[in-house]
């Protein structure tokens, strides 16, 4: 009984960690530009696919993972430079539609570059399950959660301890004032896309041994990351993390206790529920700043 619950919880926290990373990716770009980047899921896909391909070609996993993260960040920067930047000054809705177009393009490109098959990665440290209070835990789950914790800690350090990170926060709060301080606000957006791509890629790499990946794996993961960001309150970092874990656990419980048919529906139910009943999410800004 409890073992069963624990089993669902492990599985939910594992996928929740991936959604949290994706949700943070949405939050960072949203904060820098008020754009919702619907190509966030494709970053996850590219990270996993690129690593799987390089490992299959004989590269050691750590090297393949680093190269895949760098490659995904390059895609993120290119997306900003060639799709978002030229539309600067257009309405936010138009830019959101551009990111939807970009996500379709990236899926198409992945299908051409790779194929439609599923690609796998071996688990990073074996497949021997750990036993815990009657439930089993795959070592790869620990990799997923551990990677998420490390990346989130690094991100926290970047935004709270480095001058450029603070400049990014300042820009998202008041772009004009940031410009008047000499902060290069255009580079801020480029870095936001690079960081979001990095978050997606890391998630994609650590989850691929569990779920496998193919050219359209980013659709669902992206949508769930989006529901995590919306649930947490768009633009809130802590919200995206909590939101991601809640979405992951909710869908694991729903598919465990009800039917696995409900798994993917949960994320949509959460998006609709939040949009109707609590549009600012769990951690969203309620009031405005004192002027």
């Amino acid at each position, binding site marked *: 009984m409890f073992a069963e619950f624990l089993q669902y919880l492990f599985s939910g926290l594992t996928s929740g960690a991936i959604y949290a990373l994706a949700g943070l990716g949405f939050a960072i770009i949203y904060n820098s530009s008020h754009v919702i980047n619907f190509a966030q899921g494709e970053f996850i896909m590219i990270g996993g696919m690129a690593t799987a391909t390089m490992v299959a070609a004989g590269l050691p996993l750590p090297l393949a993972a680093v190269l895949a993260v760098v490659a995904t960040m390059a895609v993120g920067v290119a997306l900003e430079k060639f799709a978002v930047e030229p539309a600067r000054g257009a309405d936010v809705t138009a830019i959101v539609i551009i990111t939807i177009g970009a996500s379709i393009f990236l899926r198409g490109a992945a299908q051409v570059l790779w194929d439609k098959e599923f690609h796998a990665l071996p688990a990073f440290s074996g497949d021997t399950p750990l036993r815990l209070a009657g439930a089993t835990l795959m070592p790869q789950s620990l990799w997923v959660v551990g990677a998420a914790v490390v990346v989130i800690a690094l991100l926290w350090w970047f935004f709270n301890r480095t*001058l450029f990170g*603070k*400049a990014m*926060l*300042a820009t998202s*709060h*008041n772009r*004009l*004032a*940031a*410009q*008047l*301080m*000499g*902060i*290069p606000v255009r580079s801020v957006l480029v870095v936001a896309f690079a960081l979001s791509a990095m978050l997606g890629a890391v998630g994609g790499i650590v989850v691929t041994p569990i779920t496998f990946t193919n050219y359209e794996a980013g659709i669902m993961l992206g949508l769930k990351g989006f529901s995590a960001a919306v649930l947490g309150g768009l633009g809130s970092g802590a919200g995206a993390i909590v939101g991601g874990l809640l979405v992951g656990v909710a869908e694991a419980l729903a598919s465990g206790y009800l039917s696995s048919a409900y798994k993917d529906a949960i994320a949509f139910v959460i998006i609709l529920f939040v949009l109707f009943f609590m549009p600012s999410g769990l951690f969203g800004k309620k009031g405005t*700043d*004192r*002027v």
Partner: protein
Amino acid sequence: MLLEISDLSSHYGRILALKGIDLRIEQGELVALVGANGAGKTTLLRCLSGVQPLSGGAIRFDGADISRMSAEGRVAAGIAQVPEGRQVFGPLSVEDNLRLGAYRRRGKGVAADMERMYALFPILRDKRHLPAGTLSGGQQQMLAIARALMGAPRLLLLDEPSMGLAPLLVAEIFQTVQDLKRQGTTIFLVEQNATAALAIADRGYVLETGAVVMEGTGAELLADDKVQAAYLGL
């Protein structure tokens, strides 16, 4: 001459907001720009800071044409602005706001200047770890001024620093402006509070619907009948 604006014009879409502005500021001067709400004062400062495009004319700073220079470039060149409505970074701490004012600077001077700002505005030292958004209006204005000074500017642009403040605080802010001038900072002060601004200014300009209609020393403008009637409520 530190700043020389010649025949400057600027548009918002098809609306001409500034037409043929000529204005100059010498090293060490305190120059006031007064005019009614909507005259174009903020627009002129935005043009100087590079966040509003010119549609004609030129801006020379220290002899170099900066009309096409980026906003970052102008801050690095030494033009800092305290924007209208203060615009502090609310969620960031007071100290981070100050540190970001020195974004373009590298090196040791920054920490020493931070100490100077705390000496100038002791309340900021007491509140340095608090989010800037929690400060009162007057404290936010002090922070906005200190943040701009952290850029070690050669020209300080102030956009209505007295706006929305209680009379006692207004006096304090104007005192600070005078102190800064005495210490050698070149200041371009934009105000609707024309009496107070002209009283401390070396020279002043009067802006009306996007054009300079009068200029003179602070005292001359204060004594002028038309200025008195239009801006001083006398």
